[in-house]
């Protein structure tokens, strides 16, 4: 990895953003030339300012953020617990592994209508679909971390007289932390998709996902873009926060795992 100073790297991020928006503008104005298909960045910005002024964006965002926060927290906690169990015990892993693999690859969003029948159209059905999308990447990351624990560290602990629980708490879980956070980063991406799907099928009355759906149905393309960008920015912010956390909590690892 390039170890240039931060200002240089921030400069690159900025340049990438500027060029990206310029290309977008060029495409909209010179190639597509139909604001219904592709609005200009300026049109999207104007639309964003409008929805922010009306207070609509904020109230929608608050709802979506609540679903996302509760769902992700549930998924993360569940993933860590499940991952630790699977990583620590081969016996449990033999029983549960196939189910985790199946659930990770299965299109769980398809369960949304069913979850709404089970849990109603309120907060729970939406948070549960998000939690289901987050839980398995975290589980898989945790298991990978626990199982990759350095053998010599395990031997140090064992030879000092550490019991199974101490080995787990004081060696395996701290070792696995980076892997857990990597799993969480993948989970966050899936969770953002979960917001949209949950609100789309979930009979939501508010939310960014619903805003996107409504905008699409009336061909308000700029507003559709505003919704997507809001969700993307949220995803990037959370992912960046997790990356920061990983660097702070595992400074001995020179590079992120994912």
């Amino acid at each position: 990895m390039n170890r240039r100073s931060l200002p240089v790297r921030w400069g690159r991020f900025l340049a990438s953003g500027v060029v990206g928006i310029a290309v977008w503008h060029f495409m909209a104005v010179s190639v597509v030339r139909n604001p219904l298909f592709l609005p200009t960045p300026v049109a999207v910005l104007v639309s964003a300012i409008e929805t922010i002024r009306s207070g609509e964006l904020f109230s929608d965002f608050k709802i979506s953020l609540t679903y996302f926060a509760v769902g992700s927290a549930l998924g993360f906690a569940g993933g860590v617990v499940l991952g630790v169990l699977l990583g620590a015990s081969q016996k449990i892993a033999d029983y549960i592994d196939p189910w985790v693999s199946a659930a990770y690859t299965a299109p769980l969003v398809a369960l949304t209508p069913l979850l709404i029948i089970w849990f109603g159209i309120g907060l729970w059905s939406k948070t549960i679909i998000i939690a289901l999308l987050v839980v398995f990447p975290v589980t898989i990351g945790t298991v990978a971390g626990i199982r990759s624990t350095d053998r010599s560290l395990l031997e140090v602990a064992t030879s000092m007289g550490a019991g199974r629980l101490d080995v787990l708490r004081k060696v395996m879980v701290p070792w696995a932390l980076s892997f857990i956070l990597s799993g969480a980063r993948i989970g966050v991406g899936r969770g953002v998709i979960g917001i949209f799907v949950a609100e789309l099928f979930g009979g939501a009355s508010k939310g960014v996902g619903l805003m996107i759906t409504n905008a699409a149905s009336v061909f308000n393309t700029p507003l559709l873009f505003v919704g997507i960008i809001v969700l993307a920015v949220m995803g990037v912010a959370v992912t960046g926060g997790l990356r920061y956390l990983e660097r702070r909590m595992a400074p001995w690892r020179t590079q992120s795992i994912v």
Partner: protein
Amino acid sequence: MSMDLRVDGLGVAFPRTGAGPLTVLDRVSFEVQQGQFVALVGPSGCGKTTVLRCMSGLQALSAGRIAIGGRPIAGVDRRVAMVFQSDSLFPWRTVTGNVAFGLEVRRYAAARAAAIVQDLVELVGLAGFERAYPHQLSGGMRQRVNLARALAVDPEVLLMDEPFSSLDMLTRESMQLELQRIWLQRKKTVLFVTHQIEEAVFLADRVLLMSRRPGTVRADVAVPFARPRSTRDRHTPEFHALVDGLAESLGAELADQGSAGKPVPALNA
């Protein structure tokens, strides 16, 4: 009561698929008096490390017994502590946290553990680095932490498995002096595995020479030099004579392809 270490007919064999068991150690017997520093040298793959692993409970014995002060060691034993080869520190723990590990898992009271830890951090010369993480330390400093971590649990016998093998020569020699200083203060029984004869002679009261696999103790050589030994002692003719004699025996051991039982050249110990 004396806490002599006694190894009696120690044998270790690993099962193999498609062949008979692989005998790694065969009837290894020796005694180490309480407070003595004994080095274990031998060709690579002779099972030196396996001897230590048996004592620390990481390797099951196939035969024989190990006892400290007459009481046998079975499995992980609180009376021994091991200094592992480099990079076996917990990277998420500070110097203090690493040294405290054994005390934590043995459920020492926090205040008592903190006092022991501080004492040891100072003993190994890391005062001022208490809050540093392993990745911020040099190789030599990491081995100081490693040593302090093992000493913290106050073992009867300290096992050291090539602790300086990954250090450069200058650091290595200064760490040998440091180890001698610390050992003279704490007077632990030490069993030190190395493949460097010079290191063994400089540090130890006795050098045990092991044979090729299956490993067994071929020679037991006393090192008569007074302590504390200094770098100057490395350059005396007596020192060289002892190192050369051992090197010759080790060379004979390496050349001795498969004909176990052939006598090694006599050593004037």
